[in-house]
């Protein structure tokens, strides 16, 4: 029989990820490394980690990496890619990292049309620090810093990064995907591939938002999170390609 599905070489041999059970961070690591393998770029990649659970990839992904200060991955990637244009560069950032503290860096890099790829993990919370409210948290959701639920009057509404970035002229590729079921995992992988291909073709800024889960801080079992993502979160964050120049 032939091997038709396996881990990619970008994951350390035999490694066990530090992510929680059922966390789609793991799925993202898996498909991103698969795409990079398919593009034969594992040895020519540098990924720039935001601060958050994505930082757990430091012991999981066997590729060159830079650990960015919280929120600044897009600034680092902008400079790095310009100084090392042959390297495939992507940032890997959570919603706290990218859409809160790093909002200016994200939008500014997108607006300059920097030629790298952003992998954005929208799990609606600050996972690593224990479940605080993120800009993407759904209205009504109780978190440790919105203990009475996210209230539009006090906290406003969830921020939609794909839609926001689509207002800019420079970005080349913008898509929102999820990993909540098999067809979507496949679409997500295709989107990542397209984003990297855009980068390799020098088209400029590419951005893939993953609508994901955080079983631990959502206080749900992994299986429950799949339903919640599909039934509730996706209503707020519709999937699709927003830009493909």
């Amino acid at each position, binding site marked *: 029989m032939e091997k038709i599905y396996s881990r990619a070489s970008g994951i350390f041999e035999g490694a066990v990820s530090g992510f929680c059970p059922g966390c789609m961070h793991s799925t993202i690591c898996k498909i991103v490394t698969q795409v990079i393998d398919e593009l034969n*770029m*594992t*040895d*020519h*990649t*540098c990924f*720039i980690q935001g601060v958050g659970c994505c*930082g757990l990839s*430091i*012991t999981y*992904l*066997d*590729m*060159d*990496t*830079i*650990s*960015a*200060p919280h929120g*600044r991955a897009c*600034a*680092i*990637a*902008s*400079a*790095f890619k*310009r*100084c*090392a244009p*042959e*390297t*495939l560069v992507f940032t890997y950032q959570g919603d706290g990292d990218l859409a809160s503290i790093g909002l*200016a*860096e994200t939008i*500014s890099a997108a607006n*300059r049309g920097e030629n790298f790829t952003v992998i954005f993990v929208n799990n609606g919370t600050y996972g690593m620090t224990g479940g605080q409210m993120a800009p993407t948290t759904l209205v009504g959701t109780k978190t440790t810093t919105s203990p009475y639920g996210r209230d539009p009057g006090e906290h406003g509404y969830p921020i939609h990064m794909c839609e926001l970035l689509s207002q800019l002229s420079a970005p080349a590729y913008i898509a929102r995907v999820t990993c909540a079921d098999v067809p979507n995992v496949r679409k997500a992988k295709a989107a990542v591939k397209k984003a990297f291909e855009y980068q390799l073709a020098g088209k400029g800024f590419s951005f893939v938002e993953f609508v994901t889960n955080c079983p631990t801080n959502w206080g749900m079992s992994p299986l429950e999170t799949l339903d919640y993502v599909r039934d509730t979160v996706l209503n707020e964050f519709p999937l699709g390609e927003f830009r493909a120049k």
Partner: protein
Amino acid sequence: MAEKIFMKGCEAVSESAIRAGCRFFAGYPITPQNEVPEYFARRMPSVKGVFIQGESEVASANMVYGAAASGVRCMTSSSSCGISLKSEAISFMAGARLPVVLANFQRGGPGIGTIQPAQQDYNQATKASGNGGFRMLVLSPSDLQEAVDMTYRAFDLADKYQNPVMLLLDGFTGAMMEPVILPEAKTDEELDAIRATKTYATTGKKGGKQHKVICGPGLDTRVSQEEMNRRDAKMYEGWETDEIDYEEFLIDDAELILTAYGITGRIAKSAVKLLRAEGYKVGLIRPRTIYPFSKVAFDNLDYGKIRGILSAEMAIPEQFSTDVKTAVCGRTKVETALSSGGNILDRGYIIEQAKKLYGDK
């Protein structure tokens, strides 16, 4: 010998950096150093270097972090409050042991301060340019020739120690013009050779066995934070013997010592000359490296014949002068001549204070 060129401080520093091989600069407008990013914006294309106007100081400092991670020589500059904004990234770069050159053209403070020159960031530069207790070599020039030479050297020092190096200048030095002789430009071949030594650059494993990780202590699971802190502490200790640099001027028979650094250093020096002309036996200690502190210069003094030390700086309350007092440790009287707020220290005032401390000739 190369021709002397009449140049503005900001531009002289920028051109010297480019000649030292700086191929990436990120910065954000702030007076009095706007001419630095502006110069790089004009010049970088001609040396195939990259200039980015960052969206902020925070972003600019992080861009330099990214550039350094790629192995190119790189630099950022700002002024006072802008340096505060860079302090997290500076701490990261020191933690990740990346060679970068930072320039602070100091203005008044605290806060936004005036756009006029000051030396109010001495403590920040030499004691804590960010969290975590790291150190950097800090160089401070007194004139533009020294600014040019120190800038050039800063890139070598950054690479030698794989650590950020700071140039502590001031708005005066950035804005003034003076003739300078520029160092020779490094060739592309020389720069390629330098970049090739940077095996830590995360430009892809390229068949290498180990993936490379650029991060600070605490994240790299292969070595503990304490080990990294100890390793760095050892390097800092080495600087105390290898990298202290200061000028002594007419020290031998001096009964009064003036001490000052940076722009104030040159003023103090000319005050020494004028005082000598009047028959006062005064000398000068002028630190060029301001971190580590030139304690040795003060230890070498013959306190038997010294009436006192006058420390001059553009900072209120004193900062540099506190280090002078610590170094002197009570062996003689230390007095200060201070100003702030854009008033660069008046030579006349220094002379007056010196005479007071000197007493009868």
